[in-house]
């Protein structure tokens, strides 16, 4: 086994950016992302990475500069959190519609107001409709590996879309775990630098993002839709080869526990670790965890496969969509997937850990107990509203 180095989640991301030999990094500081770019600036200053770091004046400019640099064919990285991601929203659509393989890491954090620098998935979920490939890690090693996977997927000619990788703010960004660091040689062998996308070219001038009138716009959107859908095949190939090369295996989802468990929890990010610990600690053979890693494109087939035999499903959402018919975004994805596949399941939504409130083993125990109780009730008696975990009334 390879030598492991103790790294914070943010450092782990920065080391992966170094391994990818990125050409341009443009970013604006925001907690808890900031130390990713600080670490990269250190690599550049030390001569360990030959990249340009652009100190822009806002996240809107950070992603705009990334779009410009990517359009010249350079390999780009940026990172942000919370309000920064919200400010990037406009340009996120531009990046995906221009089919530029930018990679961005989201250090997930709650959105204001009130101001809150701690972790939940409000920022990540708020941009899930911008046409990016999106994935979320559970631990620092995965956050490191995801960046390498991201370039491989983004720059594949069958995809050519931006990719967002995510790790949970503070719970991962600022905690240290032993990491097997991917070297530049290994990284570039896995995701070689090739200009696979349309770029600006002074010898053959092109115009990018020009007016797409009603005669054309629609076709562009359809192509973009297909590309994002097809990125799943590329993801599957990439993780397979990644496993061969690095020995660590990932999938669009990860199932933990008994395959025939009656109660299955669906979750994303670091909370999955606590759920695994709960299952192990209590030897809860009756409880399984389905962790969603690849969020866009949503892995519908695997959701169906792993939930098919469950008696009851509890979705843990770390973001909230007030006024919607569903409450939490992950819940809505699960519900739509099941109903498209004619699976009538008991599914309950739990909103947990907003604004950095930890989701403890005690909370998970309460959730499981609630599900055991609801399991015995007829479907029509299930709660019609999400259940809020650990919130004061």
């Amino acid at each position, binding site marked *: 086994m390879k030598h492991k180095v103790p790294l914070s989640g943010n450092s782990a991301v920065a080391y992966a950016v170094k391994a990818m030999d990125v050409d341009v990094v443009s970013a604006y500081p925001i907690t808890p992302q900031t130390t990713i770019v600080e670490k990269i600036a*250190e690599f550049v200053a030390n001569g360990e990475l030959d990249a340009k770091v652009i100190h822009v004046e806002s996240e809107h400019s950070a992603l705009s500069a990334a779009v410009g640099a990517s359009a010249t064919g350079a390999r780009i990285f940026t990172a942000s959190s919370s309000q920064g991601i919200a400010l990037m929203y406009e340009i996120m659509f531009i990046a995906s519609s221009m089919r530029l393989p930018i990679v961005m890491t989201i250090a997930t954090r709650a959105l204001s107001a009130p101001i809150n620098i701690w972790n939940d998935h409000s920022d990540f979920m708020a941009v899930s409709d911008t046409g990016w490939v999106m994935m979320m890690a559970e631990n620092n090693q995965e956050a490191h590996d995801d960046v390498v996977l991201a370039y491989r997927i983004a720059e594949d000619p069958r995809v050519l879309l931006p990719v967002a990788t995510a790790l949970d703010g503070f719970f991962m960004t600022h905690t240290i775990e032993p990491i097997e660091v991917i070297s530049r040689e290994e990284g570039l062998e896995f995701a070689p630098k090739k200009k696979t996308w349309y770029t600006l070219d002074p010898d053959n001038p092109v115009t990018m993002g020009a007016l797409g009138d009603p005669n054309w716009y629609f076709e562009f959107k359809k192509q973009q839709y297909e590309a994002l859908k097809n990125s799943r095949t590329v993801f599957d190939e990439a993780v397979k080869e990644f496993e061969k090369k690095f020995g660590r295996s990932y999938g669009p989802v990860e199932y933990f526990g008994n395959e025939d468990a009656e109660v299955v929890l669906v979750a994303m990010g670091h909370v999955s670790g606590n759920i695994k610990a709960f299952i192990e600690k209590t030897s809860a053979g009756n409880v399984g965890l389905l962790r969603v890693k690849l969020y866009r494109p949503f892995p519908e087939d695997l959701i169906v496969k792993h939930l098919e035999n469950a008696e009851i499903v509890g979705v843990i959402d770390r973001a909230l969509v007030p006024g919607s018919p569903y409450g939490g975004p992950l819940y809505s994805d699960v519900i739509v997937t099941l109903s498209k596949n004619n699976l009538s399941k008991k599914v309950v939504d739990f909103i947990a850990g907003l604004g950095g409130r930890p989701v403890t083993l005690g909370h998970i125990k309460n959730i499981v107990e609630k599900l055991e109780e609801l399991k015995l009730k007829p479907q029509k008696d299930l709660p019609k509203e999400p259940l809020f975990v650990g919130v004061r009334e």
Partner: protein
Amino acid sequence: MAVTSEASLRYSTHPLDKYLRADRLPHIWCSGCGIGVALGSILRAIDRRVREGSLDPSKVVFVTGIGCSARASFYVGFDSAHTIHGRAIAFASGAKLANPELQVMVVGGDGDIAGIGGNHLIHAARRNLDIIVFMITNFVYAMTGGQLAPTTPQGLYTTTTPHGNPERPLNVIKLVSALMPNYVARASITHPPLIEQYTYKALGMEGFRFIEIMSTCPEVFGRHAGYRDPVTLYNVLRSKVRVKQNPHVDESELSWESGIVLGEYLIRNEPGYVRKLKEVVR
């Protein structure tokens, strides 16, 4: 609106306590930070106006964005809004136009006001909008840990320029002066009476009033620039600033080498935006 909370009255030991929310103290500013000196001086000017009867404290509104400096709105006993990074001036514009009776004051860092929020600064100054903007210049994005800001002097080390800053800093005094608002001044926490004097004056004026306050951030600016000790950083800033009567804008360069000139760069008495607006919208 209650200017003072009951708690602050009860424990009042300092003449300015009545303008603070004592229940929110101690503040989060690091020891040796210059922001407290800046806020204290601003409050003293407000106090003078209140005691004179030329300012109704219940009409004072503090609007801030995000940053260490912007944290001021959290501690003052006035109506206050802690908005989002860079947008305090936009928020303040709304507050002032919705209720022109208010004395709207914006406090922010150099990143907040002139970096991410620079666009709003330009347009509020262009309109001569009737608000006071305090920009506390500590040369870095302090709250996020000392990254390069638009005011960072060339060559200096920050967490995102560990090889030294290659960029030219923004001279905000010159920028704002070019837009011809009513008042542009630069003060420094090394000269608290100057901050008080300029604020006092600005409070008696209409139109857009801009006061830059040079400040010290020993924690994240000083640490990387080589002046970690608050007293050392204070003395370094003290040695770089120089007060001048009615300096010319061409002397306003933010230079670490040739020094930083404090003073009142622009004093005009043009009608403010609110008055102009009333002329056309009756």
